[in-house]
């Protein structure tokens, strides 16, 4: 038997190799799927494979199937991984002793108290860098992002993030030195402006200056870096969320030398972010925030919540705190992922929304007559308001 020609032998070798590659591929492929399905095969049931898809997965799926179960993940782990800013006084700041404090931090505690029955069961993950915060969330390194993050349409649609109830309404403002003679953006022709990058800020300022037909010279960087450069005199103007500006200025010894212009050029509703396709988790976060707001509206405070729970004055208080009213049952509100008293625990841990506000940022950022104040109860007849004014119908920014 003769071997085929040189060309033929190459063909033979190629075929042999192709076979070997196929086998190798199949073996490696099988190993990979073995790993993925290990848990499913342990129970040896086909249906388990379906449930497998409910486990949190690191990346967004192309389809719209529910796939997140962060709340179960948090409960199993026993701690809440909260992605927070650690460089902004008042909102999220790590002090010299390593303690993380601020307005956003209180909501981490409230959610931990609600879900884990322990306000201290929080692991504060540093999400100070604005340009990687959404990756942290999408990759599952944090359960929730509470980090002065603005809801925008493009973030909601493009990124693997879903926004819960807004915790703080602010807008982009400008800080200047009082002796600069600048009173509005129309005085800022060709000004050197320090702009925080990795946020919506730089787009707002670019849009605004296009609209008013002026040019400017931006210097961009991380929030704390551009703030430092501004205070050294590198820029004429510092632009960021008005709340951010207030928090930077209030901690300075020479705070009186600076002012924040009344002009606001954007809407910045700051809200907690969770992963897409995780309704249960988003619901819990949403209703903790609403619960803290409702507690303020109806006068439940950190001090009186225990007494209120022991002896609820009316059915709504009983429902909110998850206790029976009189001889009745605990009202079923349909929360099957958390127990009925989760709001009660949140209030006991951090107080109602107003208490959080006054404690953390009330000194620096006045609340009365701002969007962050409670809406007025419906008056018998409108007195002060022009047509359509005085409420808080608030369209989320389209950008």
């Amino acid at each position, binding site marked *: *038997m*003769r*071997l*085929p020609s040189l060309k*033929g*032998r*190459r063909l*033979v*070798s*190629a*075929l042999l*190799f*192709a076979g*070997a*590659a196929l086998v*190798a*591929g199949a073996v*490696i*492929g099988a190993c*990979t799927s073995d790993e993925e399905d290990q848990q499913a095969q342990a129970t040896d049931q086909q249906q388990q494979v379906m449930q497998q898809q409910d486990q949190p997965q690191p*990346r*967004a*799926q*192309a389809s719209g199937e529910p796939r997140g179960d962060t709340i179960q993940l948090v409960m199993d782990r026993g701690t809440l991984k909260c992605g927070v800013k650690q460089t902004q006084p008042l909102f999220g700041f790590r002090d010299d002793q390593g303690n993380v404090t601020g307005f956003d931090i209180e909501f981490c505690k409230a959610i931990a108290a609600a879900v884990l029955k322990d306000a201290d069961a929080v692991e504060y993950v540093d999400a100070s860098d*604005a*340009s990687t915060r*959404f*990756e942290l969330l999408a990759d599952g390194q944090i359960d929730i992002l509470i980090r002065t993050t603005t809801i925008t349409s*493009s973030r909601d649609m*493009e*990124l693997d993030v879903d926004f819960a109830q807004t915790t703080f309404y602010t807008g982009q403002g400008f800080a200047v030195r009082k002796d*600069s003679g600048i009173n509005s953006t129309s005085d800022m022709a*060709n*000004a*050197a402006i320090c702009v925080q*990058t*990795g*946020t919506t800020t*730089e*787009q707002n*300022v*670019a*849009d605004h200056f*296009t609209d008013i037909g002026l*040019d*400017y*010279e*931006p*210097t*961009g*960087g991380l929030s704390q*870096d*551009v703030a*430092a*450069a501004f205070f*050294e*005199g*590198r820029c*004429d103007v510092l632009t960021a969320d008005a709340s951010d500006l207030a928090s930077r200025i209030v901690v300075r010894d020479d705070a009186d030398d600076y002012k924040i212009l009344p002009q606001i050029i954007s809407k910045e509703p700051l809200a907690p972010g969770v992963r897409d396709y995780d309704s249960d988790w988003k619901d819990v976060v949403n209703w903790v925030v609403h619960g803290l707001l409702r507690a303020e509206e109806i006068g439940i405070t950190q001090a009186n919540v225990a007494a209120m729970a022991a002896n609820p004055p009316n059915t709504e208080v009983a429902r909110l705190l998850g206790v029976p009213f009189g001889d009745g049952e605990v009202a079923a509100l349909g929360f099957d992922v958390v127990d009925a008293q989760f709001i009660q625990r949140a209030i006991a841990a951090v107080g109602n929304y107003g208490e959080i506000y006054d404690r953390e940022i009330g000194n620096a950022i006045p609340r009365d007559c701002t969007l962050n104040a409670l809406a007025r109860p419906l008056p018998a007849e409108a007195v002060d308001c022009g047509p359509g004014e005085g409420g808080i119908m608030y369209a989320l920014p389209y950008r």
Partner: protein
Amino acid sequence: MSTQAPASPPSAGGGLPPDGGVPLIYRRGFRRLVQQGIYVAVTALVAWYVYDSLNLREFGFGFLDDPAAFKVGNQWLTDVDGVTSSRIEMYLVGVWSTLRVVFVAILLSTLVGVIVGVSRLSSNWLVARLAMLYVEIFRNTPLLVQVVLVYAIFLVGAPIIQEVLNIGDFAFVSNRGVAIPWPVPDGGWWGAPDWFVGVWVALLIAFGAFAMSVRAKRQDRERETGQPQFANRWAFGIFAVAALVTFVALGLPVSIDRPFVEGTRYLEGMVIRPEFAALTIGLTLYTGAFNAEIVRGSIQALPRGQSEAANAIGLSGYQRLTLVILPQALRQMIPSITNQYLNVNKNSSLAYAVLYDDLFRVAGIIQNKAGHALEMFFVIIVTYMLISLVISIVMNFINSRVTRVGV
């Protein structure tokens, strides 16, 4: 297929079959095929895994054509507003910013390296020790620390713009940057358009080439006759006279733009911004320390006889260095110096720490707006690799010129 038997017995007619009777697995060709096959299969599997797990189905670069909607600072010769321009244009502005820093830092760090490297070998105790102190400080501390420190010194140390340091109405220093005079095209006597300055530049290049050829000719003659021909003086003289004559003949097409301060900003002139300065100075000092060590090592690697021979024929210290030592040391230096140049390119991404809008920061802004982190990092990596490749190609070309014996 019956012909696939891996090894056939020798045929009855005697002699070896065409394959020499070697079993298939010992044949070199077959082994290579298997090796390459395994390589291809593993690569394909990894690629498939990456594709599958990273959700690359939506992988694409279309988002780079969308409007940028942000503006970057530190632009020079460009004025891209960010509203009408696309993200890719904004990215290219960032690339241009990176290239400027890399170019200037490479030039300055080479200069620093040669001067300090030679100084380290100086017989002057003070000069040698100062050079050693410089090298040890700057190569033993992190570059990030140096860059941030230079920037902080600039921001805190330089006066604010309201108290700007005025150097004879000629240059200004504040923590908004250093403003210096800068040549700009000018209509001159005849009100010519800006491009007219190009004519003068073309003439300068032509006369420069002519001066160099005169210099080469005179050098040759000097070598043949032994009579001094003053080649450098002639070349410089020709060029200077030609430059002056054409400059006047074309009606003074270039004027010097002197900066001045209006309110809180610089007008006219050239403004070196603190961010650019901090990054460039940091890169220069750090890389210069390494370059100095390379220069010193290359000089010390030369046989002592070279210096002794130079002394023996009566060359001065300067002549010994420029005619004998450095040209030979250059061959040793270039491969190591090339590495340092590549490091300058890569280290320029530390712009992130000093608010300089280099390509990495601009890419970060785009990424924050549009997502697509994978694509953006792909673009970033390819850009840095391209810059590195260009540096390598140029340096390899220079290396092949100075290496007389090809390897």
